[in-house]
Structure formats: structure tokens, C-alpha cells
């Protein structure tokens, strides 16, 4: 890692980890709020207002993260416009390529659920690689060469923004295509998708940053995207298995909370691991301070 990169110690970029943790907490509150509103107010929606409510709810995770990141990111601030541009780019790539490729070209729903192994393989090869390559591309072909991308955590920051943009469009698409959804279920899905997409993008972001600042070999970045795609595919297969309706004597039963718990654990694990790895990299590359006589 270059001295330029290491000169900003991890402590100066606590903003990222802090905003991530605050966003985790606030997303929990958001879920509680939605369930409380549903239980206490019993809102009645027609299909149009349900779609609009769902679409607005889809923006909540990205909005929370961006607001808290901007507030926290004071010491070595990233240009707000660039973070926002990458967020928008992630969303545009999801809408223009990601969703049409997965739903219209590959028509996953017609063949993916043949059995668990097919589901796993198809999820990694098609969903994982499509989504992670597009999120990586949103960073790699925009801010990557900029002088603002000047330290390892920047990779994670911009990739998280791309991941949240991607997740926002996926969530809006889900809400619109399902003609609006039960508010509580929709809120869980929105939070889960945002956590997962941002976390997997964070992995690619870490690999991107290491590639830029540590001069890693050319196979490094493909490995990073492949790792993110693998985790993405495994996550969505397990999530599907955990939340698939089970038939009981009194009807079909779905437990969306299991999927959410899984997503929260995974996101926390990825956040902690990335934070430790960045910390380790920076310690290794910190120049030894000169001792003056």
C-alpha cells in the first residue's frame, strides 16, 4: 500500500463503519415502525397507493446510509456528488442490464427451482455474477481512477453506494411487479436486499481498493468479483430455502424473519471482516515513524 493511502489511518475513516452500524440500528427501527403502523393503524391501501408506499419505502435504506455517511464523513470527506453518482449508476445498471438480463433473458423462474443444486449453481452463475459484475463496474468505470479514490476504505464506500443503488432499483422493481405487497413483508424484503447487496458490493470494493493501492496481480480482481458472486448466490439460495412457504394443517406458513436474521448476521460478519482486513493492511503498510535524536 502506498504511503499516500496509509497516511489516513483507519481512525480517520470511522465514518464508514459508524454509518454502517447506525444504518443497521435505524433499519431495525424502520422495521419496528412499519410493523407498529400495520398493527395499530391498519392502513388501507388501494393498489396504486400500495405501490407508491412500497417504492418510497425502497428508498429508506439508501437514504439512511447516505445521510449518516455524509454526516459522519467529516475528516476526509468523499465528494458528496461522487458518492451519489455511483449510487445512481448502480441503480441505472440494475434497471438497464441487471433486471432485464436475469428476468427476461435467463427467465430464471422457469428453471431455477428444479432442485437445490441447480438453484445454487444458477444463483451463483447468473444472479451472483450479473449483480456483482455490474456493481463492480459502477465503481471501476467511474470513480476508480479519480484522485478522490485515495485510500482503501474508499473502495468500500463507493461500492456500498453502488450496492445500495442496485438494491433500491431491485426493491422498487419487486414492489411494482408484485402490484404492491404486504407492508411488513415488503419492509423486511427491502431491508434484507439492501443489506445483502451493499455487503457483497463491499467485498468487491475492498478488492478494488487493494488492487489500486497494493499493486495486486491481475487475477486479484476477478477473484474478488467471483467471491462476491459466490456469496451472493449462496445467500439467495439459503434465503430462498429458509423463507419458502411450508404447508401446515392450517395453510401455507412463511417466516420472513429467518431470512432477515440471516441477512443481518451476514452483513455484520462482512462489515467486521472487511474492517479487520483494512485495519491489518494499514498496520502492515504504515511507515515506521522516524525517531529524532
Amino acid at each position, binding site marked *: 500500500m502506498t504511503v499516500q493511502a496509509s497516511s489516513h489511518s483507519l481512525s480517520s475513516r470511522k465514518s464508514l463503519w459508524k454509518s454502517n452500524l447506525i444504518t443497521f440500528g435505524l433499519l431495525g427501527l424502520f422495521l419496528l415502525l412499519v410493523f407498529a403502523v400495520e398493527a395499530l393503524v391498519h392502513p388501507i391501501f388501494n393498489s396504486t397507493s400500495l405501490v407508491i408506499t412500497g417504492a418510497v419505502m425502497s428508498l429508506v435504506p439508501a437514504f439512511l446510509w447516505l445521510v449518516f455517511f455524509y454526516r459522519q464523513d467529516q475528516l476526509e470527506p468523499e465528494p458528496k456528488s461522487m458518492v451519489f453518482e455511483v449510487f445512481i449508476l448502480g441503480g441505472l445498471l440494475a434497471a438497464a442490464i441487471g433486471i432485464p438480463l436475469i428476468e427476461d433473458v435467463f*427467465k430464471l423462474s422457469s*428453471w431455477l427451482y*428444479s432442485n437445490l443444486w441447480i438453484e445454487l449453481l444458477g444463483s451463483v452463475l447468473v444472479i451472483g455474477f450479473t449483480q456483482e459484475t455490474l456493481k463492480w463496474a459502477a465503481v471501476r468505470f467511474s470513480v476508480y481512477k479519480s484522485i478522490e479514490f485515495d485510500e482503501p476504505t474508499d473502495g468500500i464506500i463507493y461500492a456500498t453506494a453502488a450496492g445500495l443503488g442496485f438494491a433500491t432499483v431491485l426493491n422498487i422493481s419487486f414492489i411494482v411487479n408484485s402490484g404492491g405487497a404486504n407492508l411488513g413483508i415488503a419492509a423486511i424484503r427491502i431491508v434484507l436486499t439492501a443489506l445483502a447487496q451493499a455487503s457483497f458490493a463491499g467485498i468487491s470494493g475492498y478488492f478494488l481498493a487493494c*488492487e489500486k493501492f497494493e499493486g495486486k496481480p491481475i487475477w486479484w480482481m476477478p477473484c474478488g468479483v467471483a467471491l462476491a458472486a459466490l456469496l451472493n448466490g449462496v445467500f439467495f439460495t439459503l434465503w430462498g430455502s429458509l423463507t419458502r412457504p411450508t404447508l401446515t394443517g392450517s395453510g401455507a406458513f412463511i417466516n420472513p424473519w429467518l431470512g432477515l436474521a440471516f441477512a443481518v448476521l451476514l452483513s455484520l460478519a462482512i462489515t467486521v471482516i472487511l474492517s479487520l482486513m483494512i485495519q491489518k493492511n494499514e498496520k502492515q503498510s504504515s511507515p515506521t515513524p522516524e525517531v529524532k535524536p
Partner: protein
Amino acid sequence: MNVTGFPLRKRAKSGLSAALVLCLAGIALLAGWILKSNILNETQSVLRSGVSLQVPASWKVQFGIAEENQVFSAVDPLNLLHNITAVKLPMATDGLVTDAVVNQNLKRATVLSSYQVLEQAPYVVKDVQGYAVYYAYVENQGTGNLPVVVRGLDIYLPFDQQIVLISLEENESRFGSALPEFFRVLDSISYTPGE
């Protein structure tokens, strides 16, 4: 965006790495496409009452429960409107397939909402001279759901003093894309008299 501070040598290496990522994604998607093609082309053999067909492996096959004389029905489990059925009908004494066509159309018109024959014409499958009828009706999927237009295609094939009727039904919006698969299923038909 400002791109200073990114040396040429580093840029070339990074460009190569980016190209590798795109190649890897391309290979993964190609593998995904091969996987998809293999699964969609996988078939299961259904043999009942002398009628044998190769239907998609992922479809659920039911034997003779929905309709009198029904040999079997194969349904796409992810889209219950998409199904292929095989029915055995008695051959009229004059041996004309069109008699069975008329009877079936009359029967459908009494039980299906807004049943309408769109087109009908002679049709040949594996040198067997049969008859094809394109039709449509409105399916009311119960309270809370909007009615949908279902399109269908009947192929009547005379075998051994009986008529085997193979039908495809699918939502109107997806009917066109379901036809190639149906014709593949139809091409796999064989009939063994006496079974």
C-alpha cells in the same frame, strides 16, 4: 472526473484485470445459459393408455383426474395456466376427425366462459393427418383476482379407431412463446394400440 495520479503502467495492468473480470462474468453467464438450456430441454416420458409423450422434466404430471377420458395432464408448477393435456375421444362412425372437433367445441362452449374458436385447419403430425383448433376463453381465477384470457391449441390425431386430443393452454400474453415447446412435445408422440 479527475484521473491524475494513476500511472500508465498501473493503468494497463488494471485494464487487463478489468478485462479479465468481464471475461469471467461472460464465462459464468455462458455456463448459466448452458445450464438453463439443459434443464429446459430435459424431459420425462409419460406413457398411459397407449399414448406416449415427452413433457418437460420439471412439470407435474397427473393421470386422468380432471376430465372424463383424460389420459394425463402435465402442468408447469410455476404457472398453473400453462398445461398440456392428452384426452382420448371416440371416433365417429363415419371416421371423420371433424366430428370430434365439433363435439369438443360444443362441449367447451357450454363450460368455459366466452369460449371462442379462433382458427381451425387440417394439421399433420408424423404423417398422421389430424386437425388443429386455436381457441380462447376467459378464466376467472376467483375473487380478488382479475380474469385472464387463456389461449389454447387442440391437435386431434386419429389412432386405431380412436382420437387422441393433445391440448396446450397458456395465458394469452405467453401463448406465443409456449408454442415451440408444445410442438416439440407433439413431435415426441407415439401411440401403441391395445395398451
